C-alpha cells in the first residue's frame, strides 16, 4: 500500500539521464511542461509520449515505474474527464435525456486528462532520475540570482531537501507502526469512513511523535556541526555542464519546436 508513490522517489540506477546536470534537468522539465500545454492535437501528445518513452528508455527506469506515478491520480483523471465532457457548452454531438456531450467538451476532456497524465509523467521522470540532494542543489543554483532581493534560496533548498529526504523515512516509519499496531489487532482496512478515520489515530500519534523527535534531533545535529545557513558555504559536489547537457537541451528544443509546429500547422479539430 505504501510503496506506490513515485513522486519524489529516486530510482537509483546509472544512466545518461541520471548523470545530467540537475539545473539543466529542472529547466528542461519546465520547458517540456510548457510544451505539454502548447499541444494542439492528439498528434502532439503522441510526440510527447514518444519523448517520455525515449527518456525513460535512456534512463533505465522501467516504464512501469512511470505508470505507477499516475495510478494515484486515477480518480482526479476520471473526474476531470467527465466534468469537462458533460459541462462544456458548444456544438452538440450527443444528446441523450439531460446528458449533452458537445464537440468542445469531448475535446477539452481529452486534452485536460492527457495534460494531467503528462504533467505527472514528466515530473516523475525528473524525480526518478535525480536524487533529492541533486534536485535541491539545482533549485538553489537556479534561484540564487534572486538572493539579490533577499529571496532565501539556500534556506528553501535546504528545507526542500530535508523534506524530500524524510519522505522515505516517514514512509518506512508508517509501515513499521502500522505493522506494530496490526500485531495488536488494529484494523486499517475495513469499516466505514468514520471507523477508518478513527483507526488512523494509533498510526498518526506515534508518527507525529517520531517526526517531531527526528526534527529535534536533526536540528541539534546540524547545529553541533556548525550549520549556519547559506553564507560562504562551499560545496562538495560542484555542478558542471557537460556535452550531454547540451545534447539534452537540443533534444528538448527540438521537441518544443515540433510541438509548436504541430500546434500551428495541423488544423485543430481534424484529429480532435
Amino acid at each position, binding site marked *: 500500500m505504501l*510503496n506506490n508513490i513515485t513522486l519524489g522517489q529516486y*530510482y*537509483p*540506477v546509472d544512466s545518461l539521464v541520471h548523470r545530467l546536470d540537475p539545473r539543466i534537468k529542472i529547466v528542461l522539465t519546465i520547458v517540456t511542461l510548457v510544451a505539454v500545454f502548447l499541444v494542439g492535437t492528439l498528434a502532439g501528445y503522441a510526440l510527447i509520449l514518444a519523448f517520455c518513452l525515449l527518456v525513460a528508455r535512456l534512463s533505465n527506469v*522501467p516504464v*512501469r*515505474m512511470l505508470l505507477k506515478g499516475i495510478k494515484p491520480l486515477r480518480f482526479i483523471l476520471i473526474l476531470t474527464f467527465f466534468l469537462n465532457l458533460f459541462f462544456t457548452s458548444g456544438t452538440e454531438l450527443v444528446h441523450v435525456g439531460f446528458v449533452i456531450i458537445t464537440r468542445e467538451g469531448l475535446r477539452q476532456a481529452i486534452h485536460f486528462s492527457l495534460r494531467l497524465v503528462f504533467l505527472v509523467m514528466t515530473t516523475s521522470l525528473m524525480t526518478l532520475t535525480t536524487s533529492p540532494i541533486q534536485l535541491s542543489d539545482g533549485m538553489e543554483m537556479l534561484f540564487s540570482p534572486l538572493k539579490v532581493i533577499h529571496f532565501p534560496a539556500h534556506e528553501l533548498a535546504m528545507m526542500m531537501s530535508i523534506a524530500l529526504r524524510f519522505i522515505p523515512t516517514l514512509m518506512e516509519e508508517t509501515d*513499521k*507502526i502500522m*505493522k*506494530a*499496531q*496490526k*500485531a*495488536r*489487532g*488494529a*484494523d486499517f482496512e475495513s469499516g466505514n469512513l468514520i471507523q477508518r478515520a478513527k483507526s488512523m*489515530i*494509533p498510526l*498518526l*500519534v*506515534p508518527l507525529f*511523535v*517520531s517526526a517531531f523527535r527526528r526534527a529535534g534531533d536533526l536540528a541539534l545535529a546540524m547545529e553541533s556541526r556548525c550549520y549556519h545557513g547559506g553564507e560562504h558555504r562551499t560545496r562538495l559536489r560542484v555542478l558542471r555542464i557537460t556535452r550531454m547537457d547540451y545534447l539534452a537541451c537540443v533534444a528538448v528544443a527540438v521537441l518544443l519546436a515540433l510541438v509548436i509546429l504541430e500546434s500551428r500547422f495541423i488544423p485543430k479539430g481534424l484529429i480532435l
Partner: protein
Amino acid sequence: MSIELKHVNYVYSQGTAFQHTALQDVSLKIQDHEFVALVGHTGCGKSTLVQHLNGLLKPTSGQVLINGEDIHGEHTNRKALRQRVGLVFQYPEYQLFEESVEKDIAFGPKNMGLPEDEIHRRVIAAMEMVHLDPARLAAVNPFELSGGQMRRVAIAGILAMQPEILVMDEPAAGLDPQGRDAILGIIRDLHQTGTTIIMVSHAMDDIADLATRIVVMNHGQIAMDGTPREVFCRADVMREAGLEITEAARLAGTLRERGLPVPEDIYTQEEIRDAILRLWKEKVHAQ
C-alpha cells in the same frame, strides 16, 4: 501450538531496482514451550523472518503453518492469529499512542472484542507481569515515562492479548543495564509460565542464559540450528555469520590455544569458572 516455515522465500520490491532477497529457502519448526533465539548479522533477514510468524508479511513462495494450517489460506482468520502469536517489534515504545498507560495496554484486548471487565483484568495482570505498579502508573501518560518503562508498557500491550507464542525483536536493545535485566527477567518468567518465546538478539551472553535453542541466520538462510551448547562450540560458523560467541566460550578457546586442557563444549560463565578452578586445584596438587 507449533509454528512451521516450509521453504519460505521472501523478496523485497520484486522486479524493481530495489529488489532484494531477504529470505532464501528457510525451513524451521518451532514446538510448544521452546525458547528460540534468532541470531544473525544486521540485514541477515531476522526481522523479515519474524514478521512472517504472525502473517504480517506473506512469503513470496513457501508456506507458514500454525498447527499445520497455512496462515495465508483462504479461511484463516489472520486477526485472530495475531492474538495468539504476539509480536513485539524493535523499539516497541514508538508505537504508544494513548493518553494513559491503561488505555494503551487495553488497545490489543479491545481489538479482540473482549468485555470491559475482562479487559481491565488483563491490563492489570499485564502491568504486574512487566513490574509496573497498576495503582501508581495506570493513569499516567505513557509519554511521561522513562524509556525502559515505556518499553515495558509496550510489551504489556502485547501480553494483555495473552498470546501463546511471544515473538520479540531485540527486546532489550538500547536500554541501560538495569532496564535490560528487567526486560530479560520478564521474558524468562514468561517462558517459565509456559509461553513459547522466539527472540531476536545480538547479545550472545543473554541468549546463552535464556534460550533452549538457537537459530543462526546468514544471508537470508539458516546457517545453524541447535542447542546453545552446539551453537557456541562452532566459533567458525558463528564468525562466518559475523557473530561472536559468549565471553566464556571465547575464554575457553583462548585457554585451549595456550595448551590448557579445557573442555570443548564450555559456553556459560559457571562452566568456565568450574573448569578454571579445576585446573587450579590440579596445579596446586601437582606442586
